[in-house]
């Protein structure tokens, strides 16, 4: 696989022909894209088929009689509207909560002096070593004893603080020019005004990256919502709703796929809009 250009003077091999290599690169890119896109494309096609068409060989690669009604069916009978609403509430609470706790704690670690600062920071870092999965058993007991089973509190409160977010924002805050701090003290700014008028506006890229990261993580949560939701759909999120919608009977597959497309589409739009922030959030820590 030719990856980098180089300039041989003597007898270049056939592939060092610039145009040919460009063609090869496009061929590779196209094959990769097909691997990603074909399953998604077939899902959209299959969601529009008449159920009996699904078992045809060769499978239809285009909906000849598109069954658009599968989408309203998934939306209404499949409860997608309710599940989407619940997912939006869940995600909004978690993202706002994580931003608030992370900004405050990161500010304290970056700019304030207090006893046991180092020890406390190590304790916060230690939370990164304990995967949430390891704590679900007791957390379910805690949430139940608080009377929060099958409630949005139970769904969200365990996730309102994040060691990753605090660490990420502390790094971003520390990379701001130190003169800003002195200048703001001389200007008579207290800590709170320094935070709201200087630090938050200047660290917006890192805060946005954290927001997109925690959005994605909470929207796609599966284990905890499954454990903490009751059977009455009060807090059922899209992911758990899709599990209920997943059907194996031929005559319901198209509706279940329509629900999947409904769940997937908003995220693709968000990916296109927030690509830069998402990539910054996901790669924080990888290149350093």
């Amino acid at each position, binding site marked *: *696989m*030719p*990856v*980098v*250009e*180089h*300039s041989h003077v003597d007898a270049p091999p056939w592939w060092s022909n610039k145009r040919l290599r460009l063609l090869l*690169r496009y061929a590779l*890119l196209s094959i*990769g894209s097909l691997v990603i*896109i074909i*399953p*998604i494309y077939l*899902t959209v096609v299959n969601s529009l088929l008449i159920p009996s068409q*699904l*078992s045809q060989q060769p*499978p239809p690669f285009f909906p000849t009689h598109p069954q658009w009604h599968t989408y309203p069916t998934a939306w209404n009978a499949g409860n997608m509207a309710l599940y989407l609403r619940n997912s939006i509430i869940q995600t909004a609470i978690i993202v706002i909560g994580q931003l608030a706790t992370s900004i*405050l*704690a990161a500010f*304290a670690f970056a700019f*304030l*002096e*207090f*006893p046991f600062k180092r020890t*406390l920071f190590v304790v*916060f870092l230690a*939370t990164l070593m*304990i*995967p949430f*999965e390891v*704590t679900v*058993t*007791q957390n*379910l*007991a*805690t949430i139940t004893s608080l009377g929060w089973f099958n409630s949005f509190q139970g769904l969200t409160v365990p996730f*309102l*603080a994040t060691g990753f977010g605090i660490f990420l924002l502390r790094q971003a805050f520390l990379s701001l020019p130190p003169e800003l701090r*002195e200048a703001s*003290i001389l200007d008579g700014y207290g*800590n709170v005004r320094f935070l709201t008028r200087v630090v938050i506006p200047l660290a917006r890229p890192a805060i946005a990256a954290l927001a997109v990261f925690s959005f994605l993580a909470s929207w*796609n949560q*599966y*284990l905890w919502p499954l454990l903490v939701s009751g059977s009455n759909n009060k807090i059922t999120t899209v992911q758990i709703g*899709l599990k209920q*919608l*997943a059907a194996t009977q031929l005559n319901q*597959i198209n509706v279940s*796929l329509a629900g*999947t497309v409904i*769940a*997937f589409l908003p*995220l693709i739009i968000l*990916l296109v809009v927030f690509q830069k922030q*998402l*990539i910054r959030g*996901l*790669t924080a820590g*990888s*290149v350093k």
Partner: protein
Amino acid sequence: MTLLTPVARRRSWGLAALFLLPAIILFAIFTFYPFLENFKTALYQTAPYPGLPSKYVGLSQATSILSSSAFLQSLTSTFLFVVMVVPLGLLLGLALAVAANKTIKGIGIFRIIFSSTVVTSVAVGAIIFGTLMNPIVGLLPWLGINPNPPLLQSPTWALPAVAAIAIWQFLGLSFIVMLAGLQALPDDVLEAARVDGAGAWTVFWRVTVPMLSPTIFFGVVVGTIYAFQSFGQIDILIGQANAQQFHVNVLLYYIYQSVGGTNPDPGQAAVLSIALFVIIMVFTLLQLRFLERRVHYAGR
């Protein structure tokens, strides 16, 4: 901060406490307490009937669970799953990133496509591929793949099939991480290697990959955690009743069944949770030991 008077400093202590308190309380209740409580719960056996108190049994419960064939099978499945998903997912992500690491016409669209699986949830991925792998849907039979029993109901093929779905989903993250790593490489070193007359293939393996090692290392750690956390595909496509029979009862799914379900067994769940923690720790430490030694940090 020399500019602060003692009064201001003491006010700063109070503010620090105020700012840190929410995170401290949340970590204490939902991270440290449940983690430590596992070690106590593991010593108590859950009563056979709900409502009865659990009984102190010491370590005997832990030893009997950890030596049971169900646990060993779960461990094997988990290990095989991680070994299939992480290297393949990273290698394919690296290949895509290398192909996309050049500013040519339309590259933005390719990059969005390659990143896109990062926004698919486990449920979305499971339903997309569950349908395509369904033997009554025409795709696989048309391609001549028509095993009996079907892919997802076969003790041999169910785990690789689920791993393939997880790889597809991990591809987006793997691509994003690898591309960011490639783009952060200093151009002058690559240029120097090329000027020295090294071929593209040689430059890639001798210069690019070693310089990319911190990124690859990060990818391995993130990928391993991702693989250990995956069980949603198994829950949706295979389900509790069949997971053990089809050899896909990975550790986290085993824990889930002990926590939720009709007969919750907190004692067993605690033992399994500690086992999961220890395994993830061991994996991480091994990676630190074997990979970090080879990792080449530029400029350090």
